[in-house]
């Protein structure tokens, strides 16, 4: 029996999360990085994806393609932020591991240990199943371990993810080939469900003259052998046939094996090539010669060995309906002398591990239903590329999650689950009129090693972000839909103040105020100025500042705090490291007499936020804004300065010194200038003794 669960509906996601096949909370981890909370960022990553180390390296990052920052300048470098997080939380990640004792009394077998299979294993282990992974190779990871070249994905990065998954209690049987060492039938006898996640591990070859010559190498076999330390002997000139990512990987791999001329011939024009554009560009930098719009006609051989390739000009790859239907100009040909040819024109599943009695197949493909991930046999499911066809790692991971859901449902109910059709709504593009008012901040790209250098070996070519780069890149995130919203329409007097101070023309008033989430850039100025105190901010709301400060001071003893006691509101965007972003210890607050409150733009502090600290015993409030002209939000500096002046006057009426509320600006960066500013703040508030004046 099959049940159909209702269509899942979500409230609009930020475009980045909506575009991610596993809907990673991209905005959330960018925010966590900007706040120096790399551990929270890792938790968010792992919530959606057990392969953050892999994806930090090789994900094709559909999130970035949809990032709304592109309307302002360029997308946030989200993949590199992800990589930064995993590179900087290794100890934490090891410590957070926990073994899940299987508690459901049921056993699931996963055949294949690529990203789809291991994701399914991960999820099922978390759900309490005894999960066993069967892998024919000695190493887990599937294509990630064997086909993706090490210069893109070093083994240690892959192992970080795999070790995490195994730590849950997933059992791995490596070197165990189904169909040879154990049959599917035997597996089914000892397991309650099976997930077939064998991927597409065989290269398709072209039936052209000469294709059986010595020196014609199937692409996947070639990459597999190189990854496992058995590179085939290559000549001076190697040609890759194909225009996809595997072709580019093969070409760049050949280059690293010392081949002086590497050609890549494909039917597609440069723009049509299915490989990622950045991969093509990097390949060209490495000297790969790309022959666009050429198709193979015949492999030329000498004494049974490859001697060259005859190519014919491809005039069209796709027909009017967009279907693959190449047309050639047979009269226009050329011949290239080459020593080896690597075929990377497509892949197929190696189904020789099953026989037709065990599992239904059709024209060399596994029969399976993409809506239920089921196969012809009850309790046998399929996921990953064997189910979906060729795709990206993150798509395979998404499919692995679905497989785990399907298996769980089956094991709990005995029924097949029709996977709900996801209807993801997103925020849509940032309106141009808003984008044009946002301050451009150049994107930070990953540094790649010099092409001459990097082709000498298989070392990773990309350097990770350092902390400063990561913090700077993270604060480029527009925090889409994390801005202002009216707490209740009753509070709003329709006074227009929000509309009058909004630097982006987003806030409007029609009876009551409206700040459309898809437009607001979360500067917080309207919330700070609202005379009804009726605007809430989803990120770092300031309406509860007193409570926040109380919590921060909860562990301290007022009498132990060094006087004068300064509450310093600091612009968190000025930090270049975690030093000031991490929570302060009780001892630090007490001995320094300074409580740091890190604010994502101090411009959002209301007059009340500037005054309330005195209720909690502060002798002085210092507002440390960003460098002059550095604020992300136009108008924020001016409004803040006026607010500070207003609050100073107010405090003076109470009988406090003018210096009780001080406004300072960061010079250079936080670490370079804040200690001096704090010293100056203390000097100004307690000129007589510098220490005990306010006790």
């Amino acid at each position, binding site marked *: 029996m099959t049940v159909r669960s209702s269509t899942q509906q979500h409230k609009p996601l930020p475009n980045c999360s909506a575009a991610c096949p596993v809907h990673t909370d991209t905005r959330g981890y960018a925010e966590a990085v900007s706040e120096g909370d790399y551990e929270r960022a890792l938790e968010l990553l792992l919530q959606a994806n057990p392969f953050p180390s892999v994806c930090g390296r090789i994900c094709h990052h559909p999130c970035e393609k949809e990032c709304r920052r592109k309307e302002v300048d360029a997308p946030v470098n989200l993949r590199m932020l992800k990589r930064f997080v995993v590179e900087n939380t290794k100890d934490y990640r090891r410590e957070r591991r926990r073994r899940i004792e299987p508690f459901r009394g049921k056993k699931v077998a996963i055949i294949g240990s690529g990203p789809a299979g291991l994701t399914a294993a991960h999820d099922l282990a978390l759900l309490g199943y005894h999960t066993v992974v069967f892998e024919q190779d000695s190493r887990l990871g599937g294509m990630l371990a064997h086909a993706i070249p090490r210069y893109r994905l070093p083994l240690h990065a892959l192992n970080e993810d795999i070790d995490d998954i195994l730590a849950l209690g997933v059992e791995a049987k490596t070197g165990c080939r189904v169909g040879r060492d154990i049959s599917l039938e035997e597996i089914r006898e000892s397991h309650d469900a099976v997930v077939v996640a064998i991927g597409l591990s065989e290269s398709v070859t072209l039936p052209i003259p000469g294709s059986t010559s010595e020196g014609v190498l199937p692409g996947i076999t070639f990459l597999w052998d190189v990854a496992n330390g058995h590179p085939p002997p290559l000549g001076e000139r190697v040609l890759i046939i194909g225009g996809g990512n595997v072709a580019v990987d093969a070409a760049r791999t050949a280059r690293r094996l010392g081949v002086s001329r590497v050609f890549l011939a494909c039917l597609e024009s440069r723009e049509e090539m299915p490989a990622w554009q950045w991969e093509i560009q990097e390949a060209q930098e490495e000297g790969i010669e790309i022959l666009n719009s050429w198709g193979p006609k015949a492999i030329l051989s000498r004494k049974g060995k490859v001697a060259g390739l005859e190519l014919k000009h491809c005039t069209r790859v796709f027909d009017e309906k967009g279907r693959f239907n190449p047309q050639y100009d047979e009269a226009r040909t050329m011949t290239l002398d080459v020593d080896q040819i690597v075929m990377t024109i497509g892949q197929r599943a190696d189904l020789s591990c099953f026989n037709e009695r065990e599992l239904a197949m059709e024209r060399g493909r596994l029969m399976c239903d993409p809506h239920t991930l089921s196969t012809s046999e009850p309790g046998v499911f399929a996921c990953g590329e064997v189910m979906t066809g060729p795709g990206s790692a993150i798509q395979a991971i998404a499919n692995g999650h679905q497989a785990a859901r399907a298996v769980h449902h089956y094991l709990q109910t005995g029924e097949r689950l029709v996977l709900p059709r996801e209807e993801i709504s997103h925020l849509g593009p940032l309106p141009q009129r808003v984008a044009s008012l946002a301050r451009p901040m150049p994107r930070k790209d990953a540094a790649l090693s010099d092409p001459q250098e990097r082709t000498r070996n298989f070392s990773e070519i990309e350097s990770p972000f350092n902390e400063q780069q990561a913090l700077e890149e993270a604060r480029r995130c527009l925090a889409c839909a994390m801005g202002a919203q009216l707490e209740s329409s009753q509070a709003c007097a329709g006074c227009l103040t929000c509309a009058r101070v909004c630097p982006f023309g987003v806030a409007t008033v029609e009876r009551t105020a409206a700040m459309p989430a898809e437009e607001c850039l979360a500067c917080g100025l309207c919330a700070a100025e609202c005379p*009804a105190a009726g605007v809430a901010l989803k990120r770092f709301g300031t309406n509860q500042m007193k409570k926040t400060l109380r919590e921060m001071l909860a562990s301290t003893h007022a009498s132990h705090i060094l006087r004068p006691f300064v509450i310093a509101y600091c612009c968190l965007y000025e930090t270049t490291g975690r030093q000031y972003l991490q929570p302060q210890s009780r001892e630090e607050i007490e001995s320094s007499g300074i409580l740091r409150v890190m604010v994502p733009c101090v411009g959002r502090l209301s*007059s*009340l936020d500037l005054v309330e600290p005195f209720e909690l015993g502060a002798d002085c409030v210092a507002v440390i804004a960003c460098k002059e002209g550095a604020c992300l939000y136009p108008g924020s500096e001016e409004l803040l300065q006026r607010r500070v002046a207003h609050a100073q006057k107010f405090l003076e009426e109470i009988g406090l010194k003018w210096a009780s509320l001080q406004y300072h600006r960061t010079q250079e960066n936080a670490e370079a200038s804040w200690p001096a500013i704090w010293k100056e703040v203390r000097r100004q508030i307690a000129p007589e003794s510098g220490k005990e004046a306010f006790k």
Partner: protein
Amino acid sequence: MIVADQKPLHEVKEFVETHQKILVAGCGTCVTVCLSGGAAEARLLASGLRIAFQRAHHPKTIEDDTVLRQCDEEFVLPLLEKVKGEGFDAVITLACGVGVNFLADRLEAIPVFPGVNTTFYGAVMEPGLWAEMCSGCGECITHLTGGICPIARCSKRLFNGPCGGSEKGRCEVDPLNTPCVWQLIYDRMKELGRLHELRNIIPAKNWRPALDGGVRHTVRERIYRLEYKNR
């Protein structure tokens, strides 16, 4: 709308020196719009007073609450219940004078103090600037003056201006901020093609509908003391 300015904090502080539990009551309408007495200002004043008394070693309980309008029974009731029910012994209201009276009438022995000075009926000339436009005189004469009020906007409230203090279109009392309203009236009437009407003398006004006639009331018969509501 009604415009009000906050009283100096020390003045407000003096009002409540002898009280222990004080409620600062904001008003969510006119004084919110003119940024002098809404929820944000009520919280700020409450905080300021707490700090001031704390520093004077006389800490007091000072809370704040804001209602939509302090000039309507239905909105004010919860506030009254709070004051009486929770034992407040004084109220500072940031509403206009209407709110002060309205609360005071209903709080019997609990004193109500004004936190703002009610200034005028005005409009926003530009963000952050309010100007007087109406005096609430009870019998509008602006049909004679092109829609521009010489009572509210002339320093001398002249009905047949301008006076000799009109210089280059500005009022001698405050040339920088105040245009001569009679210059404005002249220009406006010219625009309207009614300049000749200014040859007519505007007669003395009946001031009885203004304050001169005693306390004013307005009754709207169609909803006033509905019988079925009082059955």
